[in-house]
């Protein structure tokens, strides 16, 4: 994978979450696309071995940003190391904004997976598409997470959840009547996506931003398989990461959705 070494302009920490801004010279980036990245300092060689995939969180005026949670070696290194960062070109298929007219559309998110909705909201504003943003806010959320949501999504409706079994539905209840929207764009925990895709089925077009483990990130390896309704496997990195809900195999037991890793 070709990575470009580019300047890391800032790294803001919100607890375990990091917003990393880097210089990126391009006229635009489609919302819902992702990049793969590795830390700038490679003096330890290729460790960890694979670059890590992240949604493009935001982009404007030659500055792109990621919003990610520190989990293992790859994200830890990205959060800490080096004046530079190595990032790929934007990859995959993002949100399809055809056929939504001037809206309204709903953007629904939760967890760190809210990441791609920022760039999407920016694009919709630019296109003059009216949109509402709903974000899940777990009762257990730390101050830093709330801070993060407020900063990144100032106009969002926050849906506090109690963390119980009904939590995945909470944000949906805040949305209320889905059919008043011309489309739903979602990026959140697997359970929330499952509930949403159930609720939208046959009523309103929903697009889900998924994530599966990746190796090549360019369609070569068939590693990032997402089960499709027709029994085949699509690749999250080429045919996705955003899929129309109805293309996807229905979540077994209605609980989690394939291709939406925690």
């Amino acid at each position: 994978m070709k990575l470009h070494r580019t300047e890391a302009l800032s790294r803001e920490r919100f607890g375990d979450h990091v917003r990393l801004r880097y210089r990126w010279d391009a006229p635009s980036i489609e919302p819902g696309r992702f990049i793969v990245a590795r830390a700038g300092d490679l003096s330890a060689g290729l460790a960890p071995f694979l670059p890590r995939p992240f949604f493009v969180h935001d982009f404007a005026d030659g500055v792109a940003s990621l919003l990610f949670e520190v989990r293992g070696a790859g994200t830890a290194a990205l959060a800490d190391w080096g004046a530079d960062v190595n990032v790929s070109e934007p990859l995959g298929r993002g949100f399809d904004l055809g056929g939504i007219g001037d809206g309204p559309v709903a953007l629904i998110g939760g967890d760190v997976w809210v990441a791609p909705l920022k760039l999407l909201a920016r694009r919709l504003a630019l296109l003059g598409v009216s949109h509402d943003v709903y974000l899940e806010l777990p009762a257990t959320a730390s101050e830093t997470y709330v801070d993060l949501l407020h900063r990144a999504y100032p106009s969002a409706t926050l849906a506090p959840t109690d963390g119980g079994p009904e939590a995945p539905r909470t944000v949906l209840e805040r949305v209320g009547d889905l059919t008043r929207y011309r489309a739903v764009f979602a990026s959140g925990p697997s359970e929330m996506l499952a509930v949403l895709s159930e609720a939208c089925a046959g009523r309103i077009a929903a697009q889900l931003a998924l994530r599966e483990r990746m190796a090549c990130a360019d369609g070569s390896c068939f590693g990032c398989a997402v089960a499709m309704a027709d029994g085949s496997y699509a690749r999250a990195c080429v045919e996705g990461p955003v899929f129309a809900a109805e293309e996807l195999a229905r979540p077994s037991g209605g609980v989690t959705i394939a291709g939406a890793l925690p």
Partner: protein
Amino acid sequence: MNPVDSARALAVELCGIPLGTPLIPAAGTLGKEALDGVKGIYGAILPKTVTPEPRAGNPPPRVAEVPAGMVNSIGLQNPGLDRFLDDLDAYDVGLPIFVSVAADTVAQFAAACERLSADPRVAAVELNLSCPNVEHGGLQFCAGPGTVGGVVGVCRAALRGKPLLVKLTVEDAVANAIAAEGAGADAVTLVNTVPALVVDARERRVFLRGGLSGPAIKPVALRAVYEASRALGVPVVGCGGVASGTDVAEFMLAGATAVQVGSGRFARDASEILGEFAGYLSAEGLQARELTGLLGRN
């Protein structure tokens, strides 16, 4: 070095096919969506293994990262030979196309080779013998010299004059390579992934049973290439863990005539790997083709 000299320095020949560089994508690691700008990097193109019938592949997870490498269990997802050939022009970037093929039975291998033999776009065929032989209780075709010799022999006949590469795993590599050569292989590719297991201790489950690739296996692959190339008359194509130009040089010094790059390309840009290799050649004042087996002549 000027560009012309540098191009000349990189060229090798494999089974009579001139390759602009000794790099070949390892089967299953360079797809048709990723062919932009690869012409100057590789000496040939080698798509993912095709089987006679389409295969849906394994359910996810299919890949996991491990120290200095990865484990995969893709399950040979592929569109089947018909659609593969319909679509083969997508791989035409002006480089020779090698086709990797696998099948369930010896007869199916032969039938597939027959078809590939007739297609002028196919410069050479690589048999992927790391797949179960359904007539032999699911043991892999490369499980021993006997089965290797058997399948290679019929494929050799089916392919007529077309060059035949036989790709083997590290287990019994030398004995199997000798059997492949004896049955008519024009070259042997070493190695395929190494059987591996990834355990998820938190969930207390097998995360993945698959094949290990990447720099972790490089010393093991080098050993196989070194020993096989000393035992064989036909060329060896090295594969396993190449992720730098020095790695390419090491495989050639150990005896390889050409070198496949697999998961290393996921971690790095293949053009950087080639650039480093060109740098090595010019620092050493050597041509790529002179490297093959140079260790042995010390």
